[in-house]
């Protein structure tokens, strides 16, 4: 298998493959963090997660058009502003959805699956009506495209670096928010025991709403970032939803650390296998591997120890 290549070629391929795996890892973490908060912490099976991401992507599209129309001088910086707007807009939509739909279903978590699936269909059709059925092209500032050539063989994609940086930033913020802030301990208290948390004076309704909105907001930022690597169309969200649930369930639904560990495992094994086998086969083997592990550990890689 390796006989045809020189040592330098092999080394650079391993370096590039490692980097490809890291990019995939960042993409997975970014996709899954929002869902890990909503599904893992709140128990809501949010099938509309992909559509929240695509809302973020569409907002990036609108922002880029506005900037090139009215402020062409600032175009190279629009991406940051787009991500901030994407966060708040999707978070606002999330809060609205929580208020109108989700809060009535906390006692029937399985029904959230149907309700949010319906929501995803409604959102898709809204996107189709507003933005058209065709995919839209998001123009990126020049500095985000292209690559940094290290050697003849190795090129580091800039947008890959950007996604990685963003992932680290968001993961650290979530960690601080969930485990180092007063609000985070309230969220964790509500997740563990809703009546008891309410009894000690935590406003569970408000906590729920903000948690759901936060999860959606992160999805929006992820969608905004993915305009760099993927497509933006009414149904593009469907491309991400399976992988997202896979990562969250495999990691152990209630553990954020588990989500990151599982994203790492899945992305590395998938990108390695993609290189040595074909793409479809790699996907099959990855899924088999995940199913195998889940048969042995149904609770996922990391499970919270709680008394039932």
């Amino acid at each position, binding site marked *: 298998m390796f006989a045809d290549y020189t040592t330098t*070629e092999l080394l650079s391929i391993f370096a590039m493959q490692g980097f490809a795996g890291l990019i995939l890892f960042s993409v997975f973490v970014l996709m899954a963090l929002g869902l890990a908060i909503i599904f893992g912490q709140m128990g809501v099976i949010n099938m509309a997660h992909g559509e929240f991401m695509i809302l973020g992507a569409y907002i990036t599209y609108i922002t880029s058009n506005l900037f090139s129309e009215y402020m062409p001088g600032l175009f190279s910086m629009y991406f940051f502003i787009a991500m901030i707007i994407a966060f708040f807009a999707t978070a606002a939509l999330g809060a609205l959805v929580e208020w109108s739909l989700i809060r009535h279903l906390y006692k029937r978590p399985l029904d959230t699956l149907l309700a949010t699936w319906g929501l995803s269909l409604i959102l898709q059709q809204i996107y189709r009506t507003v933005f058209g059925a*065709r995919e839209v092209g998001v123009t990126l500032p020049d500095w985000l495209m292209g690559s940094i050539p290290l050697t003849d063989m190795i090129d580091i994609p800039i947008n890959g670096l950007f996604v990685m940086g963003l992932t680290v930033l968001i993961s650290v913020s979530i960690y601080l928010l969930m485990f180092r802030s007063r609000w985070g301990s309230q969220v964790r208290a509500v997740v563990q025991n809703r009546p008891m948390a309410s009894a000690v004076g935590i406003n569970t309704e408000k906590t729920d709403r903000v948690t759901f909105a936060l999860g959606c907001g992160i999805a929006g930022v992820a969608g905004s970032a993915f305009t760099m*690597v993927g497509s933006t*169309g009414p*149904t593009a969200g*469907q491309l991400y939803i399976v992988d997202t649930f896979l990562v969250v369930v495999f990691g152990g639904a209630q553990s954020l650390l588990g989500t990151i560990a599982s994203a790492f495992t899945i992305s590395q094994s998938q990108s390695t296998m993609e*290189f040595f086998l*074909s793409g*479809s086969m*790699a996907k099959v083997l990855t899924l088999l591997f995940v199913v195998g592990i889940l048969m042995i550990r149904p609770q996922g890689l990391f499970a919270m120890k709680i008394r039932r």
Partner: protein
Amino acid sequence: MQTSTHSHRTERRSRGGLLHKLSLASASALLFSSVSFAAPATEEVNTTGLAVTDDTVKVGILHSTTGTMAISETGSVQAEKLAIAQINAMGGVLGRKIEYIQEDGASDWPTFAEKSRKLLVNDKVAAVFGCWTSASRKAVLPVFEQYNGMLYYPTFYEGLEQSPNVIYTGQEATQQILSGIDWVVKEKGAKSFFLLGSDYIWPRTSNKIARKHIEKLGLKVVGEEYYPLGHTQFNSVINKIKLKKPDVIYAIVVGGSNVAFYKQLKAAGIDMTKEKPVLLTISVTEDEILGIGGDNIDGAYAAMKYFQSLDNPNNKEFVAAFKEMWGDDIVIGDVTQAAYLGPWLWKAAVEKAGSFDIDKIKAASPGIELTTAPEGYVRIHENHHLWSKTRIGHAQKDGQYEVVYETEELMEPDPFPEGYQ
């Protein structure tokens, strides 16, 4: 109904006999058409109870306007409506205005079958223009053969099919592939190829044909890879391409994956505007470039029969009419143009047969010519596909292709290519 079904089965079993009968019938139809008059009586031109009145005829348009395929099929719907409007403005078909009934296949193959049954049985339409994916065509095919309807199918596809009830107005695989590879070998001196595609029947069949052809030419395929539909991470395969250093990347990626593939290719430092590698695709039309972005695919080559930039009077007129009807910022891809041919080919067949009867149209169709097609001259082959030229387009930053080559002769459609399966 029973007898008609039966007769189709026998027809399909003995294709040689059928072709013989067809050519006889088309010859006799030719004689009839020369003596037919404008607006003949309805009972003469419609003996099988189709929805034809003294001044109207109903046809069906069957595409997905909702669901994931709506992205691709919208252009076809627009083209068919434009053709129908233009035909009506010219006085219609046999003196009858065309009225269309539009149904939504909703990107769901059983829905396509259901709606086509509705169009044929309840609405009794004289022809249906529709379907896009091979899966939807396969789903409606038994319905069209059972109830004896006529389908005009616009998409370039993998071949391996031929039905008396379908006219295939797009190219089948060999027409698109062989001349494209010949061109890249001759003009770019290509010696090694990397084949890449989405994982379903069209890319796999097409790459099989491509591989056979490349190997026949004595050249090398250094890799062949497939990725699931909707796959969005291509970094690993791009690394593999960099390692194998092929002269040509032969890409048949479709849908949302396309956008991801070309963006990541560019981000990984593969510059398609350079001499090598050459990227040759048969799946990216101007429609897809809208989503990919002209910057990201600048320099790639595509092999298909139509590009919006084709420089001929027919096409200029077509593009102008299309923009007038559907807006200035619209783009027109290969399939959109093929869909536009459907109503015109049907009109020509009806006029040649002097009748709306399906069996007479079937018989009259082979040999029908269209000199007004935006792509230039086309003719229906006896196997119900079109003779057409294949062109090579060079992708530009503005999202259009510049035509750099076209085959001198019309390519013969060969849906069952011997030695390529």
